[in-house]
């Protein structure tokens, strides 16, 4: 039952709820109406009974023997006996002896003979018919044996409730019929109302349906929406914003990557075609093949870097080293760069204080360390010019460590600084290409740093000139 409820369409659910509510309301209304009618009829009936009983009472008189009797008894009895459902009369003394009684009342119940203080109404059955009677106390003024000249009697008058019951039944049937008809009408009406009421939602769904890959710039309009749907539209629009931005980034990256692939490809193609067109001999053939192989290797490297970028994006980098292992790796990489630095009259200095706890696990590995540190040192040596000083400094904190690579070269302009970590950005486009750079280094390094829970930032150096990059590494938890 639960399972089905969830799958039920919203409009059906609403219609059902409205229908049930209407059902309850109409049923309650019908019931109260019936009860009310019943009460009214009863009041009317009872007052009729009392009137008759009082009429009878007025005909009571004492005869010469001091007995109380009913005047015109025969006529009265005859009158009240008329019809298929005769009224039942009985006049009883204070001690329960019957003074007078209608012929049909052959077996009066004992409680009808009991004296009462005030009018008492009772429903009972006589001769397979339903009756309702009243026991009315009355004092006949006499000079009889009772005190102060009064004779207490109880007048019992009952009428068949058949007519009243029949009318009530008709009323009940009418109410039931009316309620049923109203419910029958209200069912589809509720359905229609629920359906129409949900039109804004349907319109919203239609509008959202129009937003696809090629139309990601579209947004849901809040204007025609009712107030409680506006937050929904807003939330959807926010999601679309993010998706569009992601698509845009993807598109730009793919386009930039494809662009980069063109250069080695055109080299390959032109190499082959030039060889095809010009005179061939074994020596130049071999040279052409060597050059082609170089181009293919270059393409391979490009693919590697692009793949590494995607992996870094997807956050696939996950690894752990101890602090000491990391420091050792740093020292190795720095040493590898010393010859290059020396050949450019530059100095390279590593300041790596030991970790507070050498076995602290850090979220880093050989690949990440090599890539990032080599990238930073390579950039410094390549763009800093000759005769610069490069310092590599490690600092330890509570839950992280930083590696700062700072040089005192010419530094970068504000313009370049804003684009530093962009993919395929090269400060001096042509020169980097000639020396093999692709402009992906810093972008990849930062991607790697972040996928490991750290970060790579550019800072204004402590001295006025130069560049300062800070790589933050997180400790493993």
């Amino acid at each position, binding site marked *: 039952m639960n399972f089905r409820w969830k799958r039920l369409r919203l409009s059906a659910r609403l219609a059902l709820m409205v229908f049930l509510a209407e059902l309850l309301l109409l049923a309650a209304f019908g019931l109260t109406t019936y009860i009310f009618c019943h009460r009214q009829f009863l009041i009317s009936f009872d007052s009729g009974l009392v009137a008759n009983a009082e009429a009878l009472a007025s005909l009571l008189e004492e005869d010469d023997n001091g007995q109380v009797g009913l005047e015109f008894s025969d006529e009265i009895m005859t009158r009240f006996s008329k019809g298929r459902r005769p009224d039942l009369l009985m006049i009883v003394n204070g001690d329960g002896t019957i003074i007078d009684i209608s012929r049909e009342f052959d077996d009066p119940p004992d409680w009808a003979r009991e004296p009462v203080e005030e009018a008492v109404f009772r429903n009972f059955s006589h001769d397979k018919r339903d009756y309702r009677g009243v026991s009315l106390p009355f004092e006949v003024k006499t000079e009889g044996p009772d005190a102060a000249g009064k004779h207490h009697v109880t007048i019992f008058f009952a009428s068949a409730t058949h007519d009243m019951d029949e009318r009530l039944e008709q009323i009940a049937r009418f109410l039931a019929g009316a309620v049923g008809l109203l419910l029958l009408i209200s069912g589809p009406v509720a359905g229609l109302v629920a359906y129409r009421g949900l039109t804004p939602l349907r319109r919203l769904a239609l509008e959202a349906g129009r937003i696809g890959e090629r139309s990601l710039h579209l947004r849901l309009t809040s204007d025609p929406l009712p107030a409680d749907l506006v937050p929904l539209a807003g939330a959807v629009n926010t999601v679309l914003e993010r998706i569009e931005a992601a698509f845009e980034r993807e598109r730009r990256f793919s386009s930039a990557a494809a*662009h980069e692939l*063109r*250069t080695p*490809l*055109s*080299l*390959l*193609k*032109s*190499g082959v*075609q*030039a*060889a095809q*067109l*010009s005179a061939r001999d074994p020596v130049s053939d071999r040279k052409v093949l060597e*050059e082609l192989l170089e*181009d293919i290797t270059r393409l391979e490297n490009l693919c590697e870097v692009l793949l590494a970028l995607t992996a870094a994006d997807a956050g696939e980098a996950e690894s752990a080293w101890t602090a000491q292992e990391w420091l050792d790796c740093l020292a190795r990489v720095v040493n590898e760069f010393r010859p290059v630095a020396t050949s450019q009259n530059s100095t390279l200095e590593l300041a790596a204080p030991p970790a507070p706890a050498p076995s602290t696990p850090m979220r880093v590995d050989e690949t990440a360390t090599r890539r990032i540190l080599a990238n930073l040192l390579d950039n410094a040596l390549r763009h800093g010019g000759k005769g610069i000083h490069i310092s590599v400094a490690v600092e330890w904190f509570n839950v992280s460590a930083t590696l700062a690579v700072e040089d005192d070269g010419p530094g970068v302009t504000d313009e370049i600084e804003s684009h530093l970590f962009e993919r395929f950005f090269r400060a*001096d*486009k*042509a*020169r980097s*290409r*000639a020396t093999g750079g692709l402009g992906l280094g810093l972008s990849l390094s930062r991607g790697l740093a972040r996928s490991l829970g750290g970060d790579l930032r550019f800072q204004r150096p402590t001295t006025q000139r130069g560049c300062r990059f800070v790589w933050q590494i997180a400790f493993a938890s």
Partner: protein
Amino acid sequence: MRILVVEDEVRLARNIKKGIESLPSFVVDLSHDGEDGQHMAMTNPYDLVILDLMLPGADGLTVLRRLREAGKTMPILILTARTSKEEVARGLDFGSDDYLGKPFDMGELLARIKALIRRSHGRASPVLRVGDLEIDTRTHRVSRGGRELFLPALEYRLLEYLAFRAGDVVSKTELLEHLYDYNWEKFSNVIEHYISDLRAKLERPETAKLIHTLRGQGYFLSEKQPDK
């Protein structure tokens, strides 16, 4: 015809030179830098310049603009990886005559070069005709009066150049500057030598003289006999 290729990717530049020089019509000079390329284009009479956009020194569009502002009218073809519609339009608007994206097909490059040079000399047809001399620039076949002539590369280049400049007087210097690349030592005797070789192949006593000499000025190709 002498072509300048300004491309900083050394290997690619060499491949282009090799490809273009596989045709007898052309010799190619290379430059790998914007400033250097601009200087070469300003000081040497190239028949066509192939220009890359991403250059060290001065970038391609700047070089292009400066050449046009200096009154250089040779056809310029931009060869580059930047091929969005906006970039193509910009390159053409800056004064280039054609725009080819990388990677490119060598055959297409050669055809475009020939088309640009053809148009720059006011010709529409790839077949040059002077009198009964026919030069098909597509197949490099030369024939006179239906008789096919077989010419070595340099003679063909010379004849083709004269044919493009048919009717105009071309000095020996001009010929040297358009038929040899930068690396050649230029001795004007060489031209005389080739002219006489050409005449030997082209002309018979019974046929009309095509290659005429104007003493002290140069040569010209024409079927009309000069007034004495």
